[in-house]
């Protein structure tokens, strides 16, 4: 009995520690926005933070990203390759991507 009591106590102590130290548990589903957006990271860097000559997406607002993607798609904004990419996404998908990168830290 004594032993069990000790075990429970330390386990609860561990749980308390976990609650304060562990990263936030992931939501149960991977969102469509996340699924679409991770495919951008190959060129724009993990979380949209580019280490080289390709522009970063991180730090831009969702509105800025949405406008840019739509203008790339229409050709209103000049690009080398982004026009070819942006044509692959619907308005709804562009919104999801913009919302994702607009919120990453």
């Amino acid at each position: 009995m004594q032993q069990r009591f000790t075990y429970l106590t330390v386990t609860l102590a561990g749980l308390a520690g976990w609650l304060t130290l562990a990263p936030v548990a992931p939501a149960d589903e991977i969102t469509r926005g996340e699924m679409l957006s991770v495919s951008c990271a190959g060129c724009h860097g993990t979380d949209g933070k580019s280490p080289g000559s390709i522009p970063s997406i991180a730090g831009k607002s969702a509105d800025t990203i949405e406008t840019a993607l739509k203008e790339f798609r229409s050709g209103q904004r000049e690009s080398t390759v982004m026009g070819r990419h942006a044509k692959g996404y619907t308005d709804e998908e562009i919104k999801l991507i913009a919302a994702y990168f607009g919120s990453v830290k």
Partner: protein
Amino acid sequence: MGTYSRRDFIKLIGAAGATSAVGWPLIAQAKRGHVVIIGGGFGGASCAKYLRKLDPGIKVTLVEREKEFVTCPFSNAVLGGLYDMGFITHSYDALRQRWDIKIVHDTAVAIDAAARKVKLAGGKTLKYDRLVVSPGIDIRWNALKGYDEAASELAPHAWQAGPQTVLLRKQLEAMKDGGVVVITSPANPYRCPPGPYERACMIAHYLKQKKPRSKVIILDAKDGFAKQGLFIDGWKQLYPGMIEWVKGTDGGMIDRVDAKTKTVYPTFGDPVKADVLNVVPPQSAGAIALKAGLANKDGWCPIDQKTFESTLHKDIYVLGDAAIAGKMPKSGYAASSQAKVCAAAIITSLRGANMPDPSYVNTCYSLVGPDYAISVAAVYRLQEGQISGVKGAGGVSPKDADPAFRRKEASYAVGWYKSISADIWG
């Protein structure tokens, strides 16, 4: 090592409780499951990182033979003298330290799909909940008559980057001015469809500066190739008269090679004698995929194109060059994109949750010269079980682009490389 039995798990809970918060991640990991990944290249390393990024509760063990990974992308630029080997060599430190992935430098020699175990050459056995097999390609020795492993020491393929890249570069450096470099290009499918033609560019770039009387001949099993029009324009502009492409039906199809005399024997026409012979040979999925019964009779692995789970073995996923992935090419970039979809599939399968609709991308640059690059891009969706390009999107660089556009793409090519290698090994 690397795995926990249920009994060990119970013990660990006790240990975790007794050692406070430090033990907690172990419990979360055990709850989410253990994913073993074979192969630390574009597919495998991406999958490892994105599994951990999308779900820090998953325990990931990456099995990779080499201590450092040398990429095929930009290895042609090394052949051309633009970069050294260090530029294309990546360590596993970040995956180990930043992403808490267990890296085991060993070779997987057998998979027991029923018992969910992987046997390693070093004698260890890893138990998994889900297994990812991303072994890239292996050379089908002797599929081209005369081309075996010994021949590749005389006539390098350099289609798996590393010592083969160094060997081919040394041969180019040792060649006399006025020499002939012969590249043989195989029938589809093979790793990196535009690769042989970018290689011709990069070799010509080197020769133009150091040995301008030399030539590059491409003997092709095919009658056409990726980004063909753009490459041929680039050759005319940058390397007039230096690169000759012989298509399959014009005598490019080869019957056999003699590596000792560096001679190529086409199926018809005269033998072609090379000073440097670079054979891009027929390929198959990496050896472990064949050994484990994951490949079809052609040597490539059929998969569910939504999840990348093998259609031949449950709970085993095959990625990258080894897999039959619909319309996606066998490129490093495609492998990395597939890996992210596969990571989502594995995480949701372990959670019993729904997987979001997959989305896949490919972007490949080819360097024609240091300031002249061309690209191909595509966005893919799953359509009737097949990975298919979204209509109206993607395609190659414009044909009539000005030099400023080509220069910009050359700058983006380097940026692309820095981004994707950081996205995978960083």
